[in-house]
């Protein structure tokens, strides 16, 4: 029983890592309708920037704040330069551009900072907490907390603010939005900026656990995609729930199903998702697009 509780708790902790990244993916998808494959690498890159600032003596919280600002404006600049020329082109073209960004950012980070593993200070105090026989870390609670906060902030933004409404309109009905005077192009840029901010936050929270190197996000992004699909790729709530659920299910399967063990976690995770998609094609919280003939 203790082991079960422990695995669930560890699963929630790992899942929160997936959830935080999945949120960023969902944000981009909602604003642009494309998957940004470079999301993880951009998050990694901004985390390196934070690290560099801290290394040169900037106090931690100031460094984080600066990183978020840099991420926001940097992503908008990137969108204007690289995505805007192709924003009306086919989805596949944009996907390739994001793949190009992925490769370039990874190489750039390696070139600037090298591949030696680096420690990253945690924004949360790292104190092991033990309840009964179950142990976890205040860090994990911190990540879950921040993910939920981001989720709340994003939901409120999209549903309660004019700007959020404008962004949603621009993504779903670009032509009509233009007629209404909404600067669709800038809405897309804003979408990039916001998801880069969420990504930066995710990177900074996750780096103390997975340690900082140019490849730190690659494994996580894979699971984050899975989480986003599981939860419904247009639903921020789905991203968070999907992430947590995925973390727990993976741990439980790995522990209790001998056949799966720890080496088949990845295929099994995806099998679950595929099965889920066949049964419910829009994910747990996604909305199915029905077309009437």
């Amino acid at each position, binding site marked *: 029983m203790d082991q079960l509780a*422990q*695995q669930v708790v560890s699963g929630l*902790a790992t899942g929160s890592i997936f959830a935080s990244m999945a949120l960023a993916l969902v944000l981009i998808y909602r604003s642009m309708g494309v998957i940004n494959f470079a999301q993880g690498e951009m998050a990694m890159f901004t985390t390196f920037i934070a690290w560099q600032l801290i290394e040169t003596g900037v106090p931690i919280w100031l460094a984080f704040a600066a990183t978020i600002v840099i991420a926001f404006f940097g992503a908008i600049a990137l969108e204007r330069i690289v995505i805007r020329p192709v924003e009306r082109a086919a989805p596949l073209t944009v996907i390739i551009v994001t793949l190009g960004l992925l490769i370039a950012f990874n190489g750039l980070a390696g070139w600037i900072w090298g591949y030696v593993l680096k420690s990253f200070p945690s924004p949360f105090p790292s104190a092991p907490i033990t309840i009964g026989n179950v142990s976890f870390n205040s860090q994990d609670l911190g990540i879950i907390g921040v993910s939920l906060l981001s989720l709340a902030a994003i939901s409120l933004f999209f549903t309660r603010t004019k700007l959020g409404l404008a962004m949603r309109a621009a993504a779903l009905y670009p032509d009509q939005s233009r007629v209404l005077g909404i600067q669709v192009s800038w809405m897309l840029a804003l979408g990039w900026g916001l998801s880069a901010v969420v990504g930066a936050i995710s990177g900074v929270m996750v780096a103390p656990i*997975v340690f900082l190197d*140019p490849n730190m996000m*690659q494994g996580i992004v894979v699971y984050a995609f899975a989480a986003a699909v599981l939860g419904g790729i247009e639903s921020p709530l789905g991203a968070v729930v999907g992430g947590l659920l995925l973390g727990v299910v993976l741990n439980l399967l790995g522990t209790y199903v001998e056949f799966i063990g720890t080496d088949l976690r990845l295929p099994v995770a995806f099998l679950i998702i595929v099965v889920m998609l066949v049964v419910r094609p829009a994910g747990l919280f996604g909305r199915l697009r029905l077309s009437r003939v």
Partner: protein
Amino acid sequence: MASVRSLSTGLFTALYAVALVGGLALPASAEDGVTDTEVVLGGTHPLSGPAAAYAALAKAEEAYFSYVNDHGGVNGRKITYKDMDDAYTPPQTVQDVRQLVEQDKVFAMFNTLGTACNLAIRPYLNQKQIPQLFIATGATAWARGYKDYPYTIGWMPDYQSEAIIYAQNVLKDKPNAKIGIIYQNDDFGNDYVTGLKTGLGSHASQIVKEASYEVTDPDVSSQISNLKASGADTLFIFATPKFAVQSLVAVAQASWKPREYLTNVSASESVLGAATKAGGAAATDGVITTLYGKDPKDPKWANDAGMKLYKDIMTKYVPGADITNGFYAIGIAYAYTMVDALKVAGKDLTRAKMLDVINHFTESDNPLLLPGITLKTTPTNHFIMTQEQLQTYQSGQFHASGGLIDARPFIKEEKS
């Protein structure tokens, strides 16, 4: 017209004769990649992608070759090292090697990296009788395969031998240990597990849990929890740096205090320092590992001549490099052996000569290996480096326990 034809025929014949004679008159290059003033070596490393951390080896090796070239080269020859990126994928390695052999006409391959990658190119190189020297992985395959692939030679102590040393140690100091293993699910991790089981012999039944992880896993908390729950009191960590740190930290955070053994691939000050930072001293005190090289971060070697040479070379030829990165130090050690081999092969440098050198190699003065380590091969034993020294990490430092242990006597018992 007949006269034009005979004129052109005569012309061509004359040209042909000149070419023939001229060709004979040129000093015959004894071998591809070797001239009186130059020897060309080829290499493949992952310069990009997930394994790019190892590219540091190539950088250090190029630096060392530059240093040697600036001091007159080897037997009057400058070393040119052509290194290509193979992104750690065998199809790419195979193509790179063909290009290096057929276009760049390298004399030999040096320090090709990656077990799968080297397995893929081994048949081709041996068929063409091109030396495949000082491979950058610890797989046992190179030493075991010398009968079929005589031109191939490894360098670092192989993973199985290292695991056997740990097995011997645990049987001596903790004979009733309940053993848990966390290992990377690839040839690297699997080799260690095989070696450990071989070394434990009938005591292998004391292994209560084996947990693997994939490099795509974000963390190993699940595996560590399961290992703790299995009741193990001794943990073997056969993991690459990132996952080694995570394992050590996770163990500490789970308030678990097993006897810990760590693979020397991850036994560097930076790794253990990171683990101490994240998990406290409890995470790393008492960790047992082996070393065969000098760690640049270890204060013990601050005034060591070899370490000074290393720092000088790095500062001069790779300015801006982080010299605490242990891969650079190992790279220089590799390059030193390569230069040594070239020296021994002598002025008359051929591949057949190099084969001979591989079969009778001995070196005991490598500046970046622990004092006393001797590289040695014989025509029937290609386990070139077999000595390591057990270390215990305590209070931020490695403490050597005992002298060098030679795994050579145990090698017969290893499975391949």
